[in-house]
Structures are given as structure tokens and as C-alpha cells.
């Protein structure tokens, strides 16, 4: 695990890339992705801790994940997980969805991200590709208020139905912000 320190990870991306089998695999995968979906589809290409991470747009995410699933060479037919994320400071890109897909045949993992404005949190559903996306999307809707167009049953899943906010968004502090006995500068965020 020594090569996973941030410094050496950055170094391995620059100099020692050919020696590292994971980096070579990632480079191959990225080349294939760009050939399949176009070179300018993916931005912010990174490899944090060895996992290839790319950012794309919500207009193309459904097509890309469908393509990855159907591609005979890649066979990325396993949706490991997907979850929402909230960055209140990112103007116009406050909300995000993060997808992890996995090819069980080639043992390749890929992380895809999309970001979109909180005022218009609409994303295409993946339930037509993966049955497993159903509950994960309901969870993302419940926690972040992300609306998945085409979802068959987009209702809250873990929280009570009459809740009128989406609790995982950053503006909802975990504890009452007005309490003074809990103000501890050395603790938490």
C-alpha cells in the first residue's frame, strides 16, 4: 500500500506509469473510452488511489453507461454503486452523481461523475439498464432531491414520506447550530 500515498501516487502518474500495472490498465481503459465516446466527452480525468475517474455530463451519462454495459470488449456490466454528492460552493454545479461501474470479466473499475445545478436537479434514470439502480436512485432522491426522469417509482425510501426537505444536503447541519454547549472548536466540522 506504500505506493498509495498521495505524493507517490502523483509521482507514479508522471514518471513510473509504465511500470505500474494499474496505471497501464487505466491508460488502456481511458483510450478505449475516448475511442468509444469521443475524446472531448470526458473532463477532469484523474486516478485517485488507482481508480480511473472521469467527469462527463448528464446529457451523455445514460448513453455512456449503456455503451459500457453493451460493449463486447469491456463488458462493464456491473453497477457497483451510485450516490449523490453536494458541493454548495460550486456555482451552477452544486449537486453531483457518482457512479461506480465494474467489469467482472476484465476486473476493471471506473468511476463516472456528473455535476448539475441544484435549481435543476434532473438526471436520466438508469433503471432501464440496471434493476439495481431503482433503489439507489430512490436513495439519492431521498437524500439530495435529485430527480431521475423515467424512474418508475421515485418516492422516498429511507426517510418518512411527509419530510419536506432532503437531509443530506450540506445546508442541513447535523445538530442545532444555535446550541452553545456544543460549540467545540476542536471537534468535527
Amino acid at each position, binding site marked *: 500500500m506504500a505506493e498509495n500515498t498521495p505524493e507517490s501516487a502523483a509521482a507514479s502518474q508522471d514518471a513510473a506509469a509504465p511500470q505500474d500495472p494499474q496505471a497501464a490498465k487505466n491508460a488502456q481503459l481511458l483510450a478505449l473510452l475516448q475511442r468509444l465516446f469521443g475524446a472531448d466527452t470526458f473532463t477532469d480525468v484523474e486516478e*485517485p*488511489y488507482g481508480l480511473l475517474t472521469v467527469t462527463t455530463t448528464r446529457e451523455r451519462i445514460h448513453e455512456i453507461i449503456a455503451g459500457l454495459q453493451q460493449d463486447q470488449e469491456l463488458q462493464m456490466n456491473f453497477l*457497483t454503486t451510485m450516490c449523490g454528492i453536494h458541493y454548495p460552493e460550486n456555482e451552477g454545479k452544486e449537486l453531483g452523481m457518482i457512479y461506480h461501474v465494474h467489469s467482472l470479466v476484465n476486473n476493471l473499475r471506473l468511476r463516472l461523475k456528473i455535476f448539475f445545478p441544484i435549481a435543476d436537479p434532473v438526471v436520466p434514470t438508469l433503471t432501464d439498464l440496471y*434493476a*439495481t439502480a431503482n433503489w439507489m436512485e430512490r436513495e439519492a432522491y431521498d*437524500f439530495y432531491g435529485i430527480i431521475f426522469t423515467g424512474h418508475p417509482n421515485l418516492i422516498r425510501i*429511507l426517510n*418518512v414520506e411527509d419530510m419536506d426537505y432532503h437531509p443530506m444536503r450540506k445546508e442541513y447541519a447535523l445538530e442545532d447550530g444555535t446550541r452553545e454547549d456544543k460549540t467545540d472548536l476542536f*471537534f468535527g466540522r
Partner: protein
Amino acid sequence: MAVNDTLEGTRKIVESAQEQQNLSNLVPTLNDFSQELTTLNLGPTHPATHGIFQNILQMDGERIISGVPTIGYIHRAFEKIAERRPFYQITPLTDRMNYCSSPINNMGWHMTVEKLLGVTVPKRAQYMRVIAMELARITDHLICNSILGVDTGAFTGFLYVFQEREKVYEIYEEICGARLTTNMGRVGGMERDFSDVAIQKLRDWLKTFPAVMKEFESMFNRNRIFMDRVVNVGPITAERALNYGFTGPNLRAAGVDYDVRAMNPYSSYEDFDFEIPIGTKGDTYDRFMVRNEEIWQSLRIINQALENLPEGPFHADAPHYYLPPKQAVYKNMEALIYHFKIIMGEIEAPVGEVYHSVEGGNGELGFYLVSDGGRTPYRLHFRRPCFIYYQAYPEMVVGSSLSDAIVTLSSMNVIAGELDA
């Protein structure tokens, strides 16, 4: 003759009543009876659901037409709470997820943090973790399989193996002092070395347990009654299982040999010889058999790890991250300082995002951790295998009878704490 007369008599009475009061809409005919469906609430709390989840079933007689699962009864906002806690204080949240195999959850979380911080764990600690994780897998599978026995009416097998789980919990107690919600790992290794008593208890258990396991298996494997209840019950094909995101024994029972331990080895799993048992039909019987076989494989791994347990330190030399043992805190100033700093969450993590997954008792248990350089995770998402595969439950039980639905649920090993998180 007499019956016909009575029926005839009844009909006459009804007909005359209809004529008199025009009751034709109120008196049910045979046709109406056959179309009536029952809505049955299975759960939220019912002894047979093994946890708090509700299934609203539409029943045609004894046959299930459709089912709608409702979850969230014990949702505790794990992901939200984790955003306010330093890394060590998240550990107790993880072991309350799947309380049947809490060491796996703990170690999975610690490995995720280690990956983020770039801490290398010494070989001895890795082997110790393997032992703890495999013990947890055994107890998890034992509970699942023996409860399946209880659901088919065989209480004895449950008692046999519950005693063995008790012995494993005694081993945990020797290792870390706790039994159910263990907290034996630390970021960077283990909390303390295995004591001689722990090793002795482990060796004793490894000697006696196989006989009990054989007895348990001989009670069920070819049992006519048991097989009638579970063969071809609640089946799922490999294709549907993959589409539903199944992992672990539930996926392997359908015939896909995906095991995180073999595909992406962590904590030195590449050093051990073990096989991945797979089933063919993905029915309840296959799930039962796959779990039983995995118990044997786990025993193989524990034996190898114990035989080849390397000498050396049981934790990494990473004072900034490794919580020092309590004895050292009492006697050593440096340890006290680091203890304080770590507990108060003053150690900042590097910026980055990491996904790490381990093979939990139920399947791929993944942690997706986003760190913005603060003391707590910016975002922590937990890939809970139970949450992901429980949604296939209606599809698996539609068309079967209610009693089949019970054993299917029990063989899927859905843990409510992990389902709701």
C-alpha cells in the same frame, strides 16, 4: 343426497330473499370468490422476517401475486452522522450495520482510511485481520443457515451452531474485550496482539468445530423435508442477479464466481489457498449449500493464517494515525499526546477520494470516502450489499407460496441494520 337437499334449500331461501329485497348485488357468487385477492402485511415486525421490514403482499389464496417491500424502519442516518465524526468515531457506526459480522465492517472501514492516508500495514497485522474477518464470516453464515433451518421447522441445528458462535465470541472477547460490536482493529493494524489465551482458544475451537459443522450439515444437506422446502424455492438466474447487483453468496449461488477476496485481494488474501464455491440454480438450497461450503473454506484460510502467522509488529509505525494501546497511553507521554490528538480529531486527512471494498458476509461491502482535507469525511457512501439485493425479493417470491417467501427471505440473509443504515 342430504347435502344437495340442503344446498337446494339454501338457494331457495336466497332466491326468495333476492326477489323480496333485491339483494342480487350483496350475495356473493362463486365467481366473486375466485377473484378476491388478499392484501397481507408481512412485517414490519414478525418473527419470520428476522428484522424490521415490511412486505405488502397481494395474495391469491396461498400464492403471492405481487409484493412491495417497505424499508427504513431503523434508518439512523449513518452517512450524515459520518460527515461530522473523525475517522475513529465512525468505526462504531460500521459495526452496528451488520452485527452478525462486525469485524469485517470494522476492518473494511479501517482499510479504507489506511488507503486514504497511505499507511502500510505490517504482514502480521494483515494475517490477524484475515483471521478475525474469516471468523466473522463463519459466524455470519452459521446464523443465516441455522435460522433457515428454524424457518423450516428444525430448531436443533440452530442450537448446535449457536453454541459454536458463542465460542467464537469468546475468542473475540480474548482478542479485544468485546463480543458483538467488536472494535478490535485500528487504523494501521490491530489494537493489541493476539494473547496466548486467544491463540489457544482459537486452536481449540478449530479442533472441535469441524465435527459440529459436519453434524449440522448431515442434519440438513440430504434431509428430505428440508430439501422439499428449499429446492427450487426463490430462484434467480445469474443474469438477473448481476442486473440486480447481487454479490456474495447470493450471487455465487446463481453461478457467478465473483468474490472480492479473489478478484481484488486485500489484507494478504492473495497468500492463501481457498476455493470459491458456486451454485447452479440460485435457489434457496444453493444459497444454503454455498454458505456451508464457504464456512469450510474460511476454516482453511484461518488454519493457513494461524500456521504462517508472521512475526513482527501488529501495527504500523504511524503515530499520527494509529491510536496507541491503552497501556502505552498510561505510561508514555508521546502515546498520550497522540491519543489525545487522534481522539479529538485533530489529525487532518489528505484531500482525495477512495473506494475500497471487502467481501462481507453478504457480499461486496464498499466504502466510498471523499475527503476535503478536513478532520471528518466530506462524504461517505456505504455500499451495503443488503440494501442492493433486497429489492429483488418481490421478483424472487412472486408465484410462490407464503411459506416459500419466508425461507427465501431467510436464505438471502438480509440484515435490517445494513439495509437501512
